[in-house]
């Protein structure tokens, strides 16, 4: 309902201008939202996202459709549009196909393990009354420690003459963990799970604080044991955190680079732990083919988005 109709028929230009002048601030108010100051406060982050995420992503998409290589400033070269050539090159490359299969193995092991372990450990930590801080710090330390430093410990554990093989004795795998085509990626997945567990435990710990104690008390009164309480109260109560943990674990897992680079000598043995991001680094930075690397990156982004969408549907459940 407009002011014009509410106030009766306008009788002249003066009246019309008055109505427009009254409408103008409201339109501006609508355009800027109910709290224009909010835009000001969010602007730095929006600008950051545009500059650091949106612009590079858009540039990567542009590069992926052109024959492109980096040049010195002032050097003029042709960068012809090549359509889907780079994508065809990427998708038909056996190394790329294998890297996606490798990352699939990684995610199948890493994501469920991360969600399960972090939820169980967070639940246990939430109930611990003594040494609570010690345990929380212990789980968090690997997460905040640089991979380069922590990898040394895992090499000490899993190399040919490492601690694990010494304990296993004749049962030790041959070839050993990190040089075994079947075991290299699972070992990397275990390492990443352990390293990142502290962060995800913290997420679950935060979510657990939102579950009212009354629910557990009621369940206890009704005769529900700890397992019943965990399954029927805790798990549904932290569903939103589970969605977040699943998505973050998937995204960070799909972007795997440092761990195979350091643990298995650059995606070894014979490419069994090569990841798409490692190939992007090889092709884009080392070999000077950023166009192919960008196409690979775009394929990876689309793949991760699809997986994340499916996961959100599955794990999010009724909350959606």
């Amino acid at each position, binding site marked *: 309902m407009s002011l014009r109709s509410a106030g009766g028929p306008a009788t002249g230009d003066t009246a019309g201008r008055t109505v427009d002048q009254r409408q103008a601030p409201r339109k501006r108010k*609508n*355009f800027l*939202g*109910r709290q224009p100051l909010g*835009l000001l406060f969010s602007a730095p982050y*929006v600008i950051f996202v*545009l500059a650091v995420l*949106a*612009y590079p*992503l*858009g*540039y990567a998409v*542009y590069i992926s459709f052109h024959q492109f*290589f*980096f*040049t*010195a*400033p*002032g*050097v*003029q*070269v042709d*960068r012809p549009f090549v359509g889907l050539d780079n994508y065809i090159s990427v998708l038909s490359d056996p*190394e790329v196909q294998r890297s996606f299969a490798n990352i699939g193995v990684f995610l199948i092991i890493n994501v469920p393990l991360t969600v399960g372990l972090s939820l169980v450990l967070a639940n246990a930590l939430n109930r611990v009354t003594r040494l609570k801080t010690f345990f929380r710090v212990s789980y968090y330390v690997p997460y905040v420690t640089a991979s380069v430093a922590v990898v*040394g410990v895992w*090499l000490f554990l899993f*190399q*040919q*003459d490492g601690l694990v093989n010494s304990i296993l004795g004749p049962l030790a795998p041959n*070839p*050993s963990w*990190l*040089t075994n*085509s079947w075991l290299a990626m699972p070992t990397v997945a275990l390492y990443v799970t352990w390293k990142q567990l502290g962060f995800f435990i913290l997420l679950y710990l935060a979510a657990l604080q939102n579950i009212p104690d009354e629910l557990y008390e009621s369940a206890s009164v009704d005769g529900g044991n700890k397992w019943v309480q965990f399954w029927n109260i805790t798990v549904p109560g932290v569903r939103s955190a589970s969605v977040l943990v699943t998505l973050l674990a998937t995204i960070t897992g799909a972007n795997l680079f440092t761990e195979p680079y350091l643990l*298995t*000598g*650059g*995606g*070894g*043995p*014979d*490419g069994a732990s*090569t990841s798409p991001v490692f190939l992007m680094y*090889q092709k884009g*930075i*080392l*070999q*000077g*083919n950023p166009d192919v690397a960008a196409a690979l990156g775009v394929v990876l982004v689309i793949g991760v988005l699809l997986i994340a969408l499916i996961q959100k549907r599955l794990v999010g459940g009724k909350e959606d």
Partner: protein
Amino acid sequence: MKHGKISSRVLSLTAIAVIGAGLAACGGGASSSTASGANSATTAKGPIKIWYSNNEFEVKWGKDMVASWNAAHPDQQVDAQEIPAGKSSEEVIGAAITAGNAPCLVFNTAPVAVPQFQKQGGLVPLDSFPDGAQYIKDRTGDLANQYKSSDGKTYQLPWKSNPVVLFYNKDVFAKAGLDPEKPKLATQSEFLDTARTLVKSGAVANAVWPSPTSDFYQPWFDFYPFYAANSGGTTLLKDGKSTFDSDQGKQVATMFQTLYKENLASKEAYKGDSFADGKAGMSLAGPWAVAAYKGKVNWGTVPVPGTQAQTDGSTFSDAKNIAMYSSCKNQGTAWEVMKFATSKEQDGKLLSGTGQMPMRKDLATTYADYFNQNPAYKTFADEAARTVEVPNVSNSVQIWQTFRDAWSKSVIFGNQSIDDAFKGASDKINQLAAQK
């Protein structure tokens, strides 16, 4: 709710506009530099920046060299620093070229990266200086021809080489019952027998421990020196065609495959120096290692063995050169600094300070006193005249990566026959070398 939607749309439109503007900017390209501008740059004098390696001995040499230059040229001061940290020097230099902030000179330019830097428009051809080509020829001789690019120009000044030889641990050899003064390492067959003896005797866990990682440059420290020795100094490519899918190449591959199969060499990467740490009885390295092994290993050296015993075998150069970068404004000064840093006096200081071999055609006679006083370096000086370089072709890094992947698959991990792996790699490399 409606306000929220409007705000979302506004933000979305803003994002699209920003991305669009970015893409439009990308498509615009950059302005080209003019020929006259390039000419004036080659004569321009003034202050310049240079980068050198972070090797402690080279840093000391670099600082002394720059101090000498600066003292004599107050109007053309050199500002020197170590190459900024990165996964590799080549990545840092490549990024600097793209950003336009590369220094005038880098005293650690890897020959394998030169074709890529050249393609980026990041290098100045040294032939553009009136005395450029002649200076390089007079100093390095015919060996300099290996560093010419496919367009016939020279974008790198051959500076220093690290001829790869076979180091062996005398104490470990003695422990295994082998003669440490006359080791049986003249042929690849003897090398293999010696490796077996070392491990089976329990003297050492690994006869040799070349890095098994997938890095494109690892063949330079396992396959390539042996291949050079085995083939009379044949490079990986000749006339644009790969050469390794041959009897000589496959002999080397088979020898290494045997080392891995018989557990004489480890398939795991070693974090550190396996030879210095006593984990391997032999190692392939250049003269830089002499200082590194001092006090740690009682070492000896022999030339890399071929299939037949030889006195004039070739090896890999492991050279690092000096290149001038196109972002340099005072290229006249940069060229003079290049010549100053590679003068007889400075080369002598480099040799005595770092042990690395200046790429001079009469190295052994020019610094005869040094080699008489330091006989350990004589082998390297002798080898320096017979080094082979990585081929100076387009897609150089990709070519080496292709070879390395085939090597890993067949030789190290045995997942494919050497014949098939080498044939496949050879075909792919021929295609890569043919691309411009």
